[in-house]
């Protein structure tokens, strides 16, 4: 079965991202597919590579990145020449990210910012990706406040 996950809250402040992580991990362990994890509202804060929790605490951002790596939460597209492009399916909403200062290179250039902070295992994209995930997946599961 194909799952889409939506996370509405930032890391540490709420349990939403933790719950979503354990749900996603369990789904993958059962052999289900996770089509996309979409980070919305304050959930976009899960995508910053600058997170530095104390050593005795979990690193929520890295934990997502490692899970995505291990289970290949990603999509592969082919162009007309047969060249494959692999992209991560940990997706941060662009509109919500702009408001909250989550920035990739493209956004930094477009908006004249002097830094980026998106984690390399995450990507910033439009809200349409959430809608598409809801269409493509068999289940949309929302974690939030």
């Amino acid at each position: 079965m194909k799952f889409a996950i939506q996370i509405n809250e930032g890391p540490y402040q709420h349990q939403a991202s933790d719950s979503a992580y354990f749900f996603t991990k369990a789904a993958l362990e059962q052999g289900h597919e996770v089509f996309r994890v979409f980070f919305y509202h304050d959930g976009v804060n899960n995508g910053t590579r600058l997170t530095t929790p104390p050593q005795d605490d979990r690193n929520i951002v890295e934990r997502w990145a490692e899970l995505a790596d291990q289970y290949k939460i990603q999509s592969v597209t082919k162009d007309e020449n047969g060249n494959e492009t692999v992209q991560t399916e940990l997706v941060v909403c662009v509109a919500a990210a702009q408001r909250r200062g989550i920035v990739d290179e493209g956004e930094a250039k477009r908006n004249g910012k002097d830094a980026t902070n998106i984690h390399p295992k995450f990507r910033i994209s439009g809200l349409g990706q959430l809608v598409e995930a809801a269409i493509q997946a068999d289940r949309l599961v929302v974690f939030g406040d």
Partner: protein
Amino acid sequence: MSETVKKFLYLNRKAPYGTIYAWESLEVVLIGAAFDQEVRLMFLDDGVYQLTTGQDTAGVGMKNFSPTYRTLGDYEVKNIYVDKDSLEARGLTQDDLVAIAWEDWETEEEIENIVEVVDAARVSELMEESDVIFSF
């Protein structure tokens, strides 16, 4: 774009301004319109406050997104529901809510107000009928 047509239900239970959920959920609806799905909006619990008339945010420095609801008909949203008990519990009636007009540009069919107040049984039915529920 996908050819699958699903029944989407956007279930709004949060009041506007105090938190951003109402506004950002409306953004999903606006973007989602491009995907040609069968879209329904439901306003439940404090979500009914999203539709009240006379919102004036000048004094709080926030964007007044209330007028955007009136344009939903232009985004091919034709079905908007408000839970009757939620309205009553808050001392509101449909007169307190914005009217949202809808028009089919081809057939020129017009509906003056697509906001429909429904009872609890209908709310349950609408949830049951949908393929995907977006919860905010």
